[in-house]
């Protein structure tokens, strides 16, 4: 019998085409971007892939720009750059990026990796849900764009095919007021007990939400979104009616299916989500009333 050893192959493509070719030829090779999830798994011996597919040298993967009228964010853009470069164009995502780990983790960690891990606690996912983002998946077979809402299929499971890589996420350009907040039991370096993201789109009079760490996958609060679409005083930007805020909080809390675990109780998570939702809509609406509509 041969026991697995710590030796493993390290594949380092330099172009996207090469990366996709390696991925197709060698699907057992585990992609690694910032490595902030992968290295933990390796250290804890939870995974022993025969090879690593390092995406760190792939040209263009850490670029962002506009494409087809959408904001295209390469899967390899680290959180630090999202915070410093995209706070205006993707405010919710930038707020979430600011809450992730520590400065070291934000220097390495990527949205591509957050999607790849598909953890229900991935902090980038609720703002992407709220914004209605698309995930661009690529393989030698071609490219597909899927809504982030369907990307995660269960805890740490996604629709990524064995020969696919995550190329980018695409965000609609008409960012309106966005909010993200996360509860943890310390003030930094903490996995979300629960989190909530909200995106108001005054131009289209639509609303997006995202709930983190309170269901097997990040989820939207559809009924809560519908409530705001129907009842926000879009036309005159009037003050928010308190009952609407309260009802919104209740519907967000109801959309979650949290559990009791070491990080918090289900009851707390529901309660906190209601509070976060109320605060988020108040802040976002206040921004809207101040005229903070972005084109």
């Amino acid at each position, binding site marked *: 019998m041969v026991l697995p050893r710590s030796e493993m192959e390290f594949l380092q493509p330099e172009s996207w085409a090469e990366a996709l070719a390696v991925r197709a030829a060698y699907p057992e090779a585990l992609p690694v971007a910032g490595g902030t999830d992968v290295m933990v798994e390796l250290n804890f011996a939870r995974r022993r892939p025969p090879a690593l597919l390092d995406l760190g040298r792939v040209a263009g993967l850490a670029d962002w720009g506009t494409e087809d009228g959408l904001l295209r964010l390469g899967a390899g853009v680290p959180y630090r750059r999202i915070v410093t470069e995209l706070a205006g164009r993707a405010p919710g995502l930038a707020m979430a990026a600011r809450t992730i780990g520590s400065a070291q983790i934000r220097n390495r960690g990527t949205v591509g990796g957050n999607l790849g891990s598909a953890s229900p606690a991935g902090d980038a996912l609720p703002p992407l849900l709220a914004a209605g983002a698309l995930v661009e998946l690529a393989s030698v077979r071609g490219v597909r764009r899927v809504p982030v809402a369907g990307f995660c299929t269960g805890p740490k499971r996604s629709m990524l095919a064995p020969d696919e890589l995550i190329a980018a996420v695409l965000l609609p350009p008409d960012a309106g007021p966005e909010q993200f907040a996360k509860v943890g*039991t*310390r*003030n930094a370096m903490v996995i979300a007990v629960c989190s909530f993201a909200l995106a108001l789109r005054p131009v289209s009079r639509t609303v997006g939400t995202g709930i983190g760490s309170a269901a097997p996958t990040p989820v939207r609060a559809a009924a809560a979104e519908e409530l705001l679409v129907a009842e926000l005083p879009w036309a005159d930007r009037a003050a928010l009616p308190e009952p609407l805020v309260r009802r919104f909080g209740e519907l967000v809390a109801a959309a979650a299916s949290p559990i009791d675990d*070491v990080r918090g109780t289900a009851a*707390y998570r529901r*309660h*906190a989500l209601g509070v976060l939702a109320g*605060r988020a809509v108040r802040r976002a609406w206040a921004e809207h009333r101040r005229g903070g509509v972005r084109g």
Partner: protein
Amino acid sequence: MTGQILPGARSDGSAWSVGAVGGAVAPGCGSSGGVRCVGGGVGGIGASPVRPDGALKVRGEFAFSSDLWADDMLWGATLRSPHPSATIRGIDVGAALAVPGVYAVLTADDVPGDRHYGLEVADQPVLAVDEVCYRGEPVAIVAADHPETARRAAERIVVDYGVREPVTDPEVALAGGRLVRHVPIRKGDPAAVAEVVVTGEYRVGMQDQAFLGPESGLAVPAPDGGVELYVATQWLHADQRQVAAALGLPVELVRLSLAGVGGAFGAREDLSMQVHASLLALRTGRPVKMVYGREESFVGHVHRHPAILRYEHGATRDGELVYVRARILLDGGAYTSTTPAVVANAASLGVGPYRVPNVTVDAYGVHTNNPPCGAMRGFGAVQACFGYESQMDRLAEAVGLDPVEVRVRNALAEGGSMPTGQVVEGPAPVARLLELVRDRPAPPPVGDDPRQLPGGVANTTAPEQVVRGVGYAIGIKNVCFSEGFDDHATARVRLELIGGEPTALVHTAAAEVGQGLVTVQAQIARTELGVERVVVATADTSVGSAGSSSASRQTYMTGGAVRAACRAVRAALLARLAGGSGAGADDGGVADDGGAVGDGGVVGDGGTVGDGGGRVAGGGLELAGGVIRDAAGRTLGTLVDLLAAGPVERSVRWRHRPTRPLDPVTGQGDAHVQYAFAAHRATVDVDPELGLVRVVEIATAQDVGRAINPQAVLGQIQGGTAQGLGLALMEELQVVDGVIRNPSFTDYLIPTILDVPPMAVDVLELADPHAPYGLRGVGEPPTISATPAIVAAIRAATGLPLARVPVRPEHLTGTG
């Protein structure tokens, strides 16, 4: 053999290097023949010379015990029990032995000596004998040529368990007769009555020391049939005794050297991998290294005892205490470890630093099938303090007094007596410490920098959602070992010319665990011997025991021993001076003064203690800058001349003044050596809707008797306070049915830089006439009162009773 393979081992076989491992050289210091000096120039007591390990640690270059390496070494791994309680019907190691690369698989049957060990009672199996009593208990060990091979092979060992229902509730354990120790304290009238009575039940969760450097070390078989063990520990000689007993070897054949310690806080007082690595090394004839992983570390050491504390305080309407009745139950987990001493501390310190005429305390420690608990910074005093300080706040409310005022009214003072009847000798500035923190200016009001709001940068909380609260607490801790324990420390000091320069070599077995003890030893030698160059040898068992780096005792004890040995060297020099230059009689004779050198401080006016620095015993002679002068300032000789005849070496075993056992029925007795006090004022901002807390500022005041190294003193106060903050707000091993559910730094949360607030620190130096230089142990007191002060502040902000730590968001929002 070991010289070439171990970081920090002797490069020239001469045994000297600074620090635990790694051979630090302070800037500007020379190095000759493998001998290095610590600092230079000044740097005696009262200074804060650069510590030799500081820059290395900051740069990530310090060699910890997990960095030890031998070219031909094997790796050890441990198979642990998955059950909190089970019988072992059989163990089949065949599949593990069959794995290529595996050199040995050992079980309890392979332990040649005593199969059980323990600090106070030898009841913990080296490897499980017929049963397991906690989850994570070592059952078998493997040596292989690769760490992963060793781990995978261990997984192949088949153990036939007969699973039993674990006892995990300490109340059930107590009722079921699983008592480890009961300490009663009876003072005054047990039936005393009072006008105002407040009661409460409080709980303390299981805190972990959470050191960063996991249990690790390297065992090297020696040609004489013994073993050389390089390990991160708190007490080399306690390890040596237990390892030798388990190996069935005389202690001389088990030689330990301190490897680089990555934090301790009590968790390295008990054995972890020491016997296991030694057994494997002796069995295979190869060096064996063991390093625990993080999850393994959480089951690989003892924790702070969880506690249930019931208190009843009776007082006059003016808030003067009439009586305190308390019952304290401590969960010791599966084995005894230091539970008996922790129980005694909780009992004897159980009413806090207050004058209480009538006291009835019963403290119990019990065995359960939870993870074993033992030493952790504060050692029984932490749990009690959360109880009695919570009570003092209740009392303040009941009598309508300010929380500081009620404490000051009852404050213990010099000459006051403890519930044990022990009179507190020397300064006990309880009231003053409280007033110092009270009188500090208040921190600025809540601002809108998100990093200073509850929830930090996670964007949860706006300034208008915050309520502020302020809370106070004070604690008391015994310093050194108590209850008649023969507590001693040994130091060997050698003064000689190296490269023509007088150089002091200080050798002790005292464990530098990060607290700065190496630096302190060098400071004392500089002060006592008037030399600049001091070399502190790697701590090992070739010199007598220093006792444990615990109980806030090492600066007192090893510091005291180093001072005594230096003074013995000075006396020998003086004799040489008197006997003419040719006196070659000082050939390293050993003076064991057995405590006669104990209380040598010189008490000056106003309670300050003279340093004795450079004063040579007899006749007002001075030794400074390498020159001996008489009182008139005339030069009598130089160190260079006196040492030309050869080195002077003295070894001293030093003791603090004796203590006495507690009477088993009344709990009366002078059980403690010294008391230390610290007070805290905590200011917190709470987001009550989300249950999030940010500590805004902590003001703290502590009497340290004498700050031997002021910077290290501040470090202890800040670090201890942060550890107390951790217990108040987040640090808990969550144990359910005997299983730790959060054995990782992902879920065992310790405060980050964004959780630890600015600290305003007042240090008092009121000398204790019994202690070397008047010093008072510093390490533990700040941990003790930080926790209740923070919880008091949260209570003040929210109005909630909060009877349990850590306080979780659930407790603040009613969603637990």
